[in-house]
């Protein structure tokens, strides 16, 4: 038990069972299911309703990152000619594809690939490589980037048309027809889980924040890879209960919360604990994150009574499919709503769509909010891009700036 961080969430053991169970089932899922590999922002509802067993290569790569297996596995891809300048998630999964190396035992090969460009164009390049290797159909849902304001009507139409066109392809691979009722049920469950997740995140508006962003990173796997499952709804309902109990009991993620900050971009999977403890030891709580928020903020768009229209909206509007100004506004709103004192923007070498714009976003946060904002260069999964000494220096300087700020917020006493 840490002497600077609050007690771990009790629901964590249930999370471990859920996620481990998913990957354990995956090992032999190809015996009685068709297998689909999908991107994290893909309209998985269609495939779930067709009983595909769904594998998320990005989540697998995140597991490799957290287990510090990325360098070993991605070296397999690099030896085959894949540059270190391409996304480390992709390199890891291509490494697994080529070598079979994985910390999850076995990943069943795909019968179908589904990629949606709403998180990046990288997934398109990556899934083209998978399609070439496995020689299976690739369904692409191409979601036009929303530069500012709202998506055009023709962009939403185009996205919906592609989803409709995907159904017969998926049915052919699944060897069964899609049942509307099942699609509506999966969408309804996905919406419920997403709403619960958003509520959990919003509870961090409380002082002290009951959970940290690191807790959110660790517990977000089901909302990404088990969206649409009843177990996922049950899990997040239990997590929300526990978060409320922590608020009731005055339990914070950091024992002595003196400053509250924002995290932008993906986590640094192989240094979660280090970052949490370093910041916690200075009374700094990581309270909100644009990344974990992205898995909750689309809940209002989902509607099981008009599934295809709602999926077109929900999958067009992820933060990564919107402009740099929109992301800045999201951060500014979070800084206001969560009463934050600073921001760390992880400049992630492996994620250009998330990272391009951060230099201006940082400057605007400093200018408009007058709070410290730090650009921290690393990689979400490849530890070779992480300079321990440089990060420690920059974090120390950042914390010093936070400590000099007047204390705006006082922790609430228990029960406030």
């Amino acid at each position, binding site marked *: 038990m840490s002497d600077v961080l609050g007690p771990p969430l009790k629901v964590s053991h249930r999370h471990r069972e859920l996620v481990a169970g998913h990957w354990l089932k995956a090992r032999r899922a190809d015996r009685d299911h068709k297998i689909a590999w999908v991107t994290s922002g893909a309209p998985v509802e269609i495939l779930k309703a067709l009983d595909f067993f769904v594998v998320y290569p990005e989540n697998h790569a995140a597991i490799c990152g957290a287990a510090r297996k990325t360098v070993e596995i991605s070296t397999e891809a690099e030896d085959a000619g894949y540059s270190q300048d391409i*996304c480390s998630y992709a390199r890891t999964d291509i490494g697994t594809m080529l070598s079979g190396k994985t910390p999850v035992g076995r990943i069943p090969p795909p019968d179908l690939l589904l990629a949606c460009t709403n998180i990046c164009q990288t997934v398109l390049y990556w899934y083209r490589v998978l399609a070439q290797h496995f020689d299976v159909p690739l369904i692409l849902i191409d979601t036009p980037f929303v530069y500012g304001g709202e998506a055009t009507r023709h962009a939403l139409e*185009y996205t919906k048309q592609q989803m409709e066109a995907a159904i017969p392809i998926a049915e052919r691979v699944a060897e069964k027809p899609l049942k509307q009722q099942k699609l509506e049920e999966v969408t309804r469950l996905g919406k419920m889980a997403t709403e619960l997740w958003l509520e959990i995140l919003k509870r961090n508006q409380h002082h002290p924040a009951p959970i940290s962003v690191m807790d959110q990173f660790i517990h977000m796997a089901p909302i990404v890879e088990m969206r649409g499952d009843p177990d996922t709804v049950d899990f997040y309902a239990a997590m929300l209960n526990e978060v409320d109990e922590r608020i009731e009991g005055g339990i914070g993620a950091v024992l002595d919360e003196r400053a509250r900050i924002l995290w932008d971009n993906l986590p640094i999977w192989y240094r979660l604990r280090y970052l949490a403890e370093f910041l916690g030891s200075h009374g700094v709580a990581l309270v909100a994150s644009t990344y974990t928020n992205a898995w909750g903020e689309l809940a209002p768009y989902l509607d099981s009574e008009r599934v295809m229209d709602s999926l077109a909206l929900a999958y067009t509007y992820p933060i990564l499919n919107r402009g740099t100004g929109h992301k800045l506004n999201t951060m500014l709103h979070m800084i206001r709503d969560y009463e934050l004192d600073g921001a760390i923007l992880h400049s992630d*070498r492996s994620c250009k769509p998330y990272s391009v714009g951060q*230099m201006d976003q940082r400057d605007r946060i400093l200018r408009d909010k007058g709070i410290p904002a730090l650009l921290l260069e690393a990689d979400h999964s490849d530890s070779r891009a992480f300079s321990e000494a440089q990060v420690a220096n920059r974090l120390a300087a950042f914390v010093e700036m936070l400590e000099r700020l007047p204390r705006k917020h006082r922790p609430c006493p228990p029960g406030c």
Partner: protein
Amino acid sequence: MNDQLAVELPRRTEVAQAFKQDGGMVAAVLPIHYPRALLRAFGILPMEVWGPPNVDPGVGTAHVQAYVCSVVRNALSFLHSDTAKVADLILVPHACDSLQGLGSLLLDFVQPEQPVIPLYLPRSNKAQGIQFLAKEFRSIYDRLEEITQRSPSDSELMTNIRREEAADVLLAQLHSERRCLDISDYDFYRMIRSREFLPAEGFIDLAEKLRSRMGGKRERAIGVMLSGIVPEPMETLESITEFGGMVVADDLACTGRRLYPPGESEDPFRRMAERILHGPPDWSLGRSIQSRIDHMREKIRSTDAQGVIFYSVKFCEPELFDLPSLRNELDRSGIPSMTMEIDLNDPLSDQALMRLETFFEMIA
């Protein structure tokens, strides 16, 4: 062989100024695909910005991280320079995550004096993709109507489309007749890249003059395919000539991947969409790796190229993703290949030149 270009090329700035003096406007256009004819119908001359090389990257460096390619970093710097003031608007087609970021930065933070118009290219050449792109062009038409206060008719659009189609047919002929053109690679690329800034009618004149000078085949030159984004620094082409080589097949984003076929539809918006989406296979339009392999093999066969030089801009992720599959398939077909990685602001290193020379020795 003549070392001098058969026809004299005007400078970009001269072309832009002359066009504006005649009452036209100029658009700075970022890579890769866009409808030239749509701009021309509004009296706007597109001038493409592929970097450009040798720009002080200071401004770009202030906005994007070091792991973003030099095409984007230089473009940001260039668009901030006095030279770019000649442009009345900036068109930013969507090609990759970095160019997407560039468009977004221009709109949200950099906010240049000129209007910035983003354009999304669909990653599908099926019916939905063509329909979407035609509608995307219609919405750009509306923006241009606001900016220019002009409303070109369908007939005017079709006239411009047909002129661009004629220019592209000639461009494709220059590529296919490469071995018969009595001109160095350096000058050949200067010539075909003038399509990036000359009006179609000016390019047609130049291309016809060049074709009239077709000479004997340079049988002894070792033909190669050049694949990548942009042949910068252009001195690389001189080195290829020096090592006894000749670029006979082109898979560059700025040239060979934009040999658009004529469209079919009589609806001008749809026709412009068809042209781009039925062009050579390109990752930026979502085409499969297999389609790229098939296309490259066919080009290599028809031009008798002896090898492929993959000429990538540092940090260009989409090019890097395709590279291992392309090279493996070429290996299987017995076609040697090499890779060179460049930054627009750096000259080729001696080591890179030595590798290039060795490659030509190997395939000779």
